[in-house]
């Protein structure tokens, strides 16, 4: 994969990444801020995500209610999201309309108006968002597992925040958060699509370089000490279906073990973005009728994170029976070397997923920023090569290192309706 991107740092410290793609008359613009739920102290959980909501409330130039209309009128698509490590905003526009997105993001980086009234109305919207998630047994289980896995590190809480904090965060809290983190030297602007790099860079400089830089905000770093012994927990709730979630502590995305872990995951629960019916866990648990589904995933984070597997149980088997089968599969990957063919397969899968992604310009702009949050763009462009270098011994070693009971949390959702 050719690394045909331009990277520039503006005088105020803001990073800009540009990638020309002339396959469709579309440009996607993403702005990433280095702030996420990990930066929130107890009492202010959920404030990054809430601030993201407030960024849609308008500025003097684009008053409340006109931002979304302006984008939609031009046929654009836009949205925002908050993760544990970052907050990001994107617009994907017809190429000749991208100026609006650039002006809008430059403006709201500095001039977002946050009023008491808007905060009051958004408070109930966000609580409603949380209540919607709480309706799902798997959210409740996931939240409990996350809490148990991170006692010290601020990955402890969910991105949406705890209800207690959603009830008490004030307008000034939100405004301070905004003023602290939304400075150009804490941001990365990523553009991909149908433009000429020189012309585009000129436009970007004209809009963004004059924004005064701020203090580089500190990131919250409280390393999680190694877990000493398996943690088990249960959550009870309505329904008839039981779920088990098993979460292992794994490395961050720049650790040398990251790629062997990716291969291990694709063997156990399938490659990301594809079906997983020939993955080892599916064959052992679903084909053998111990569960109706088993899926797994891990995040790519700045700090050590979790590899989670969720089992949806059959009513005629207990969670303990399924967990025993699961543990046998883990022992197998620890004790028996995988084949080279299995690695080749994982590489081909990754190649295909990358090819699908290249059909979509929004997706390509996303990856530039996403990788910049924890590494740099070469992490993305060398991904497949690094996967190809993994050996069967590497996979065995990471399976033996990370997939230990003492390194995991096992949570069970117990449905009260099953009787």
């Amino acid at each position, binding site marked *: 994969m050719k690394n045909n991107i331009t990277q520039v740092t503006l005088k105020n410290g803001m990073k800009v990444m540009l990638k020309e793609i*002339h396959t*469709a*008359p*579309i440009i996607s613009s993403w702005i990433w801020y280095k702030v996420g739920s990990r930066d929130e102290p107890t009492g202010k959980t959920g404030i990054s995500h809430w601030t993201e909501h407030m960024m849609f409330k308008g500025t003097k130039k684009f008053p409340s*209610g006109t931002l*979304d*209309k302006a*984008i*939609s*009128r*031009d*046929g*654009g*698509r836009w949205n925002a999201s908050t993760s544990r490590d970052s907050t990001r905003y994107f617009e*994907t526009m*017809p190429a*000749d309309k991208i100026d609006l997105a650039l002006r809008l993001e430059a403006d709201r980086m500095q001039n977002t108006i946050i009023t008491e009234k808007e905060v*009051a*109305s958004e408070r*109930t*919207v*966000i*609580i*409603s*968002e949380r*209540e*919607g998630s*709480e*309706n799902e047994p798997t959210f409740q289980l996931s939240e409990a597992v996350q809490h148990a896995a991170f006692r010290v590190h601020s990955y402890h809480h969910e991105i949406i925040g705890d209800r207690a904090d959603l009830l008490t965060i004030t307008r000034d809290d939100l405004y301070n958060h905004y003023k602290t983190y939304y400075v150009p030297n804490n941001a990365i602007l990523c553009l991909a699509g*149908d*433009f*000429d790099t020189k012309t585009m860079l000129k436009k970007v400089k004209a809009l963004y370089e004059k924004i005064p830089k701020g203090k580089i905000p500190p990131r919250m770093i409280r390393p999680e000490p190694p877990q000493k012994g398996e943690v088990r927990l249960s959550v009870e*709730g*309505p*329904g*008839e*279906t039981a779920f088990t979630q098993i979460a292992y502590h794994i490395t961050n995305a720049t650790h040398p073990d990251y790629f062997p872990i990716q291969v291990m995951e694709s063997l156990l629960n*399938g490659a990301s973005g*594809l*079906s*997983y*019916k*020939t993955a080892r866990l599916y064959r052992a648990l679903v*084909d053998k*009728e111990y569960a*109706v589904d088993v899926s797994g995933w891990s995040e790519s984070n700045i700090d050590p994170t979790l590899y989670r597997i969720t089992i*949806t149980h*059959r*009513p005629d088997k207990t969670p303990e029976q399924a967990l025993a089968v699961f543990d046998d599969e883990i022992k197998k990957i620890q004790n028996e070397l995988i084949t080279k063919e299995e690695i080749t*397969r994982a590489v*081909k*899968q990754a*190649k*295909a*997923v990358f*090819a*699908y992604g290249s*059909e*979509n*310009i929004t997706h390509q702009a996303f990856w530039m920023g996403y990788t910049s949050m924890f590494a740099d763009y070469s992490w993305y462009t060398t991904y497949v090569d690094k996967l190809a270098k993994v050996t069967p011994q590497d996979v065995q070693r990471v399976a033996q290192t990370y997939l230990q009971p003492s390194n995991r949390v096992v949570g069970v959702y117990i449905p009260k309706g099953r009787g």
Partner: protein
Amino acid sequence: MAKSNYKLAKSSFPSAEDVHQVTLSNGITVLARSNFNSPSISMGGYLPAGAIFESDEKLGLADFVSTSLMRGTQTRNFDQIYNELESVGASMGFDSGVHNTNFGGRALVEDLPLLLQLLAESLQTPTFPNDEIERLRAQLLTGLALRAQDTSEMSSLVFEEILYENHPYGRPNDGFVETIQSITRDDMEKFHRLFFGPRGMVIAIVGAIQPKQAVEAVEKFFGAWQVEGQKEAQELPPLNPIKKIVKRHHTIEEKSQSDLVIGTLAPTRKSEDYMAASLGNSVLGQFGMMGRIGNVVREKSGLAYYAYSSLNSGIGPGSWEVNAGVNPKNLNKAIDLVEKELKKFVKQGVTKNELEDSKANYIGRLPLSLESNGGVVSAILNIHRYELGMDYYQRYESLVRSVKREDVVEVARKYIDPSKLVIATAGP
């Protein structure tokens, strides 16, 4: 700079010139279009074997059959089929609706023959192995147990039951616990024998391949498929429109959020009313942050994280509905707000600015929806299914621009009567 504008974009939209359309001698329609920007292809299509053929006692049969197609064929078992696909990063799947069984998949272009071969086997020679059927049954029943706990799914289910009483559209495609338990292997085998066949099947392929090669590939795997006596679906029965406000609540205990669906019937996709209704719906509950509904329910009142309206138009009468998720104690307040907006919409229609905004959005967003191979596959399948004409995207801008304010208020009044609505809710 490669100066981009709408005219340039327009020339890249699918048209009669670049969508290759061929009907094979057995009745299969093939649609193909090239896109060499990425080494991948997308494939999709349908055949007329939907839930419309099911009896009430065997509800969910078409769905059960469609999920069983890849569980074993005369050539390969379940594990072999998925091993072929997953080994090369390809994917394929089936589902079903009232009218059709649908399929879709994607792969690197070098693996298109594999994808078509597996599609052909799954459609033509599925074996419905007993052990696989029982495994699937357990999964479907768990799906139904989860559905019973899902406020959004249950409010929609109740909504459709009332709006489409005694009509195939009123029955859930995934059936009920009793009906799924009653379906036998014989039922599935018979359903496949009677309703699956080449007549009426459509397949679209978009990606890094010359259209002619795509057609040849389909011909190779499907050209010899013949089914004698392939049954045709009956016409949809007439629908009795509701005559008053019908309100029903479905209780699901211990939920922190309730869902509501308020709505009525919508025009068919082929109807002349469609574009005006669609633009009207955009103003009502889509444009910007979910239109007027989003503005009133979410922005002004802070009652919901999501509140929007949608126009679901297809072969038969569609639904025009407002959906929202709210705290159970705010349910009635939200219903009142939505009813008020519907009344206003029908009485006053839309303003000139609102309509112009939505028109600009419809025209401007087209390149985005046609960006990926998958997007083009669904666009050209829709053109075919609803007989919109292969020049549809060339005419699209003028179709949108021709809608007037009067047209919108007229269709709003024709379809929405605020004194005759279905109000379905689910939650504690």
